[in-house]
């Protein structure tokens, strides 16, 4: 019996309708599960010359070994393909209920290849896998689609994810959505799904996931829940979602960025939630339940968490949360990444301010900062490729080329992917973005430098700064062996901090645990906790070192896939817009920002830690072999 895993990889070819089932066991030891297994299949299955919208591209859904159990927050599905945004690795995680249901149906991974002739949806009911006609459903949004699919299947409890009009029209910022707030939003995976003529995936499973030592597993779950409940932020999170924490975060971030404007101090997510909250909901097995549901007359209903509040207010200088809500609901319905949308709108506003574009370029709309007339129509325009939306729908670098006049200089992107605008470009964050395999992973946010940078900005003098950051330097020394890593003015130790944080997300992504159970928001799940549960679940010893090594192996493989797509060291950069963006309290403080030379220095350090060639940024054969990836080295011609 295979513990913790459902046991099978389901492969569906939409071109010829063939369905195949492979065992997951050959992958399990080296790649653990979820994102790790997805990645190996993607690396082996997608060739260098394959374009993101070719039928040969693969769309993968991977579910980790802890998903389906009561492990708190183990609910994630990793979605992967070659990305139309970056032309390299496309990867986005989603929570919700799809992952556990896939496992209950008997599958750890789902691989979709080929392209259907006409719109279809995929129905998976245990062994019954059907490619069903979706021509009537095509054109409907991601709220209507699940309902129509469930009616067609005659099963109100099926778990459904779908694409909306944006994915159907191959908008590169299209996402894959559940009906209630979960989305694989980043790197254009909804467009890949659209290119396959696949409207939705519906799953219903009736099988079990076995656990080797159920009694101890349950007892450990109880203990872990108790320790989660004791964490400092937990009470706040459970009661108010991210709203209160995010209110403080956004103020701190914009203090570092130095952009303030009239009305920004009035933005209060917590008040909005207090006044309008419909219900607090959450993902499978999650003790946090971070989602806020709203049902607002005239503005629409939906479910949201965390960042979109800030994306569509602070980043656009819009103080009106009701406007945020209207736009967010449209993003949900159309299946569009809210973060990419907000980045695109902000870019147009910047171009308008600089006089590079006029209302004539933007369908007669003056793209003024914070203007509701400018913000409101854009989700629809991009999703339906109307007017200026059509230009933006093929990606911001392409749009910048068409606009010309130096518009490119104002982009805030990495590897073509629109960045999270409220990540301050301090050294660790810039390095993390530059070396990220997907352009930018907002889950990787090294803590120690971020908090020290804030202290630095507020410090009266050097002595008070040193006093304020002593404990962070102590931690840096203990955790990565470099005391100065916590000093925001030097490049020392920054690569080590980035790697430390990547390790945290690697492990969570492989096992299917939400990274929000970890130190990311002050909760106690770490590699030791996860390894312990793996051991109880599998009934065999499972060392924490094994888990960390597997995470690193996955990271080498992510890099190798990008190298296979032609990316090297020179692609590990951030766009011009990042430089000089940090102006704490309006002052220019170059010492806590970064220069090109500093970024290159940090990249050297990072490649050395990873065992990659410093000249090219490509993993060395020696490193790949050490991790049992000799076949990958062969494939890269190393």
């Amino acid at each position, binding site marked *: 019996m295979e513990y913790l895993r459902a046991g099978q990889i389901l492969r569906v070819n939409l071109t010829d309708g063939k369905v195949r089932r492979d065992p997951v066991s050959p992958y399990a030891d080296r790649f653990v599960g979820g994102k790790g297994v997805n990645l190996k299949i993607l690396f082996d299955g997608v060739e260098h010359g394959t374009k993101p919208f070719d039928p040969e591209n693969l769309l993968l859904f991977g579910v980790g070994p802890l998903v*389906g*159990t*009561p492990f*708190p927050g183990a609910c994630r599905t990793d979605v992967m393909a070659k990305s139309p945004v970056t032309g390299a690795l496309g990867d986005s995680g989603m929570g919700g*209920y799809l992952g*556990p249901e896939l496992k*209950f149906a008997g599958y750890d991974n789902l691989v979709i290849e080929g392209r259907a002739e006409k719109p279809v949806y995929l129905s998976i009911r245990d062994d019954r896998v059907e490619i069903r006609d979706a021509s009537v459903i095509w054109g409907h949004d991601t*709220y209507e689609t*699940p*309902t129509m699919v469930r009616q067609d299947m005659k099963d*109100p*409890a099926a778990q459904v994810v779908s694409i909306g009009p944006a994915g159907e029209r191959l908008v590169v910022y299209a996402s894959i959505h*559940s*009906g*209630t*707030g979960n989305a694989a939003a980043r790197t254009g995976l909804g467009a890949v799904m659209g290119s396959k003529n696949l409207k939705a995936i519906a799953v219903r499973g*009736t*099988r*079990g*996931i*076995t*656990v080797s030592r*159920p009694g101890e*597993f*349950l007892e450990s*779950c*109880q203990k872990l*829940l108790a320790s989660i*409940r004791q964490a400092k932020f937990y009470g706040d999170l*459970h009661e108010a979602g991210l709203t209160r924490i995010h209110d403080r975060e956004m103020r701190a971030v914009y203090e570092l960025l130095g952009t303030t404007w009239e009305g920004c101090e009035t933005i209060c997510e917590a008040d909005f939630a207090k006044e309008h909250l*419909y*219900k*607090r*909901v*959450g*993902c*499978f*097995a*999650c*003790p*946090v*339940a971070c989602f806020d*549901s709203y*049902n607002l007359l005239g503005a*629409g*209903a*939906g*479910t949201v968490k965390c960042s979109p509040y800030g994306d569509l207010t602070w980043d656009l200088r819009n103080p009106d949360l009701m406007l945020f809500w209207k736009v967010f*609901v449209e993003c*949900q*319905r159309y299946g569009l990444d809210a973060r990419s949308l907000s980045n695109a709108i902000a870019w147009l506003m910047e171009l308008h301010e600089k006089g590079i574009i006029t209302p004539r370029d933007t369908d007669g709309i003056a793209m003024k900062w914070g203007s509701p007339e400018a913000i409101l129509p854009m989700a629809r325009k991009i999703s339906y490729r109307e007017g200026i939306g059509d230009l933006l729908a093929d990606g911001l670098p392409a749009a910048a080329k068409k606009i010309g006049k130096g518009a490119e200089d104002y982009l805030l992107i990495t590897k073509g992917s629109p960045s999270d605008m409220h990540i301050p470009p301090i050294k660790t964050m810039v390095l993390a973005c530059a070396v990220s395999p997907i352009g930018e992973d907002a889950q990787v946010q090294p803590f120690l430098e971020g908090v020290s940078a804030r202290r630095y900005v507020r410090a009266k003098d050097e002595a008070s700064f040193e006093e304020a950051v002593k404990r962070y330097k102590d931690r840096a020394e203990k955790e990565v062996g470099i005391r100065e890593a916590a000093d925001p003015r030097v490049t020392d130790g920054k690569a080590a901090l980035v790697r430390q944080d990547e390790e945290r997300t690697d492990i969570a992504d492989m096992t299917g645990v939400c990274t929000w159970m970890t130190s990311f928001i002050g909760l106690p799940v770490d590699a030791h906790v996860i390894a312990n549960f793996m051991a109880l679940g599998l009934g065999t010893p499972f060392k924490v070192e094994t888990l960390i090594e597997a995470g690193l192996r996955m990271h080498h493989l992510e890099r190798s896939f990008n190298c296979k797509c032609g990316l090297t060291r020179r692609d590990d950069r951030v766009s011009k817009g990042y430089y000089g963006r940090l102006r704490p309290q309006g002052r220019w403080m170059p010492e806590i920002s970064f220069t090109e030379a500093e970024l290159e220095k940090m990249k050297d350090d990072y490649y050395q830690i990873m065992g990659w060639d410093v000249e090219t940024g490509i993993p060395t054969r020696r490193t790949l072999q050490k991790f049992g990836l000799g076949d990958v080295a062969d494939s890269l011609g190393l």
Partner: protein
Amino acid sequence: MPQFISVDPSVCTGCGTCEVVCSLYHFGECNPERSAIRVIRREKDGLVFSLPLVCQQCKQASCIEACPSEALSRKSEDDPLTVDEKKCSACANCADACPAGCIFLDNQRNLAICCDLCGGQPQCIPLCHSYCLTLENSDEAGNKNRIEKLASILETEGLWGNEPRKGGR
């Protein structure tokens, strides 16, 4: 009177932890379809409705009355409902008879499945993060109301007759 698991539908987030805890404790596997507590979770227009259904240990239990093979019984007045595995034919009459459908079928063993309170310490309760579930003592007056309350929520939501996730044939 036996104890019962009381449900506060206003705080349920629909996470389904209780389902997998139940089946893991009783059968060593995580499987909502083999659980004695089942969360009805429905998505509509971007919103979620969720409600855990679990045996309310009615004194005058319609499931017991509906069972043609006398498979459902209580050892004593103070004990929870039990299913006699030898007698149960999985006809699902009990599930249909319960006003809120709080007794289910385990299709793997082909038996009815009902909350047994885990021998007095229900495992789902300490792992429910939202304090939706609590172990309470029955009182005769509230007896009928409990199950009717759950049934009326289902009715209001238009979920009755909508085949909630209860197994069945």
